[in-house]
């Protein structure tokens, strides 16, 4: 790599330095916009005791669900984990810890983490089990709880197009958590469908500026659909 060129050619290079016990922030919503090849590489690496910050945990056999197969995840920070029988089994057996976090709070934790904000106050979760043990403050007559931001040793992100400098665009609702995840990794790895030359992406249309990104790799994607709902033509 030279200058701003962030492109790596193998998934070995893409995740070099990822070790057991690290925190990994992952983009994606359900199976939409997940970094599926980076997840597969983490499985192959066999690293364990990971803390994974992701809205969901994939399904059995796909997405982050594959990391449950060899018990690589110690803790999940997620808003919804209901699509996954193995997850349930490990949770009930006490082999897996889960920190359920409201979806908007989770997005904001990543955003704040990437923006150097250690904590923020939100009304979400006040008066619920989510508020237990958290500082409460009143602003303008309303109660808010303090939520701490998150950062990761690695962030794994799925983009649509990137240029060699790591500027990224996302496609449709595959954007979801990816832009926030991208800002919150010490090492942010983005896998994309297409890599173009600097200057080919319209600067004002870039979702994630390259300053957040350390490595870019081109992958091929299955893009599995979770709920295939159709109408008659």
């Amino acid at each position, binding site marked *: 790599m030279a200058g701003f060129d962030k492109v790596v050619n193998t998934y070995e290079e893409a995740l070099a330095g990822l070790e057991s016990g690290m925190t990994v922030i992952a983009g994606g*919503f*359900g199976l939409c916009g997940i970094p599926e090849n980076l997840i597969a590489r983490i499985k192959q690496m066999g690293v364990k005791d990971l803390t994974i910050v992701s809205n969901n945990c994939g399904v059995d056999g796909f997405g982050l669900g594959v990391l449950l197969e060899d018990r690589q995840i110690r803790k999940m920070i997620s808003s919804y984990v209901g699509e996954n029988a193995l997850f349930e089994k490990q949770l009930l057996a006490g082999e897996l810890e889960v920190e359920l976090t409201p979806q908007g709070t989770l997005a904001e934790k990543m955003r704040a983490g990437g923006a150097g904000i250690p904590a923020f106050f939100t009304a979400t979760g006040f008066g*619920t089990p*989510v508020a237990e043990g958290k500082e409460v403050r009143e602003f303008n007559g309303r109660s808010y709880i303090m939520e701490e931001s998150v950062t990761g040793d690695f962030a794994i992100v799925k983009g649509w197009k990137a240029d060699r400098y790591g500027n990224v665009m996302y496609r449709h609702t595959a954007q979801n958590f990816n832009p*926030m995840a991208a800002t919150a990794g010490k090492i942010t790895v983005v896998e994309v469908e297409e890599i173009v030359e600097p200057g080919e992406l319209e600067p004002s249309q870039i979702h994630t500026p390259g300053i957040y990104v350390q490595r870019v790799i081109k992958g091929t994607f299955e893009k599995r*659909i979770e709920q295939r709902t159709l109408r008659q033509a």
Partner: protein
Amino acid sequence: MALSREQIAMRVARELQDGFYVNLGIGIPTLVANYVPEGMEVMLQSENGLLGMGAFPTEAELDADMINAGKQTVTAIPGASIFSSAESFAMIRGGHVDLTVLGAFEVDVQGNIASWMIPGKLIKGMGGAMDLVAGADNIIVTMTHASKHGESKLLDSCTLPLTGAGCIKKVLTDLAWLEIEDGAFILRERAPGVSVEEIVAKTAGKLIVPDHVPEMTF
């Protein structure tokens, strides 16, 4: 007769106003989209990052990168926008959504809502529900009035862990339209053929019954 799922959706749809941005929860709330009055424009917000959600796609339109918050494949209407989860929840938490419709296990006279967790059963997570109830001013909860065993779900105090505290003002059950004010449910409308007595019997929380309780018509 208790309201059908479709009738619940039809009654909620009467609360829509032209130009509303609306978030519809999974289940019955989703059906509200089928009853938007002719000539009225509303835009549906899906919390995974889509404002202007359209119908399900045809086979030709199907795209794995276009889903809604229920993880179903969808389309976007002309004039839609797509954005990140942080942007989506800025809309929700910042109070920019005009109407939120969602289901619940229990509500109580203080406007508390429990909808995400039954202790002892598997906890799957709250998704965006806590953000939605904390961020919206105008929320309609749709639910059955009582359980299959006849136990009221409209209580003086929720027994299940809360989704949000003091945030619910309007409830539509299969039996009645109620508002929550000053620590009580107020019976505003009843389902066709359902008596005030039946509603009183099935409401455990404090209930105020005005002199005249109109019957809904469909």
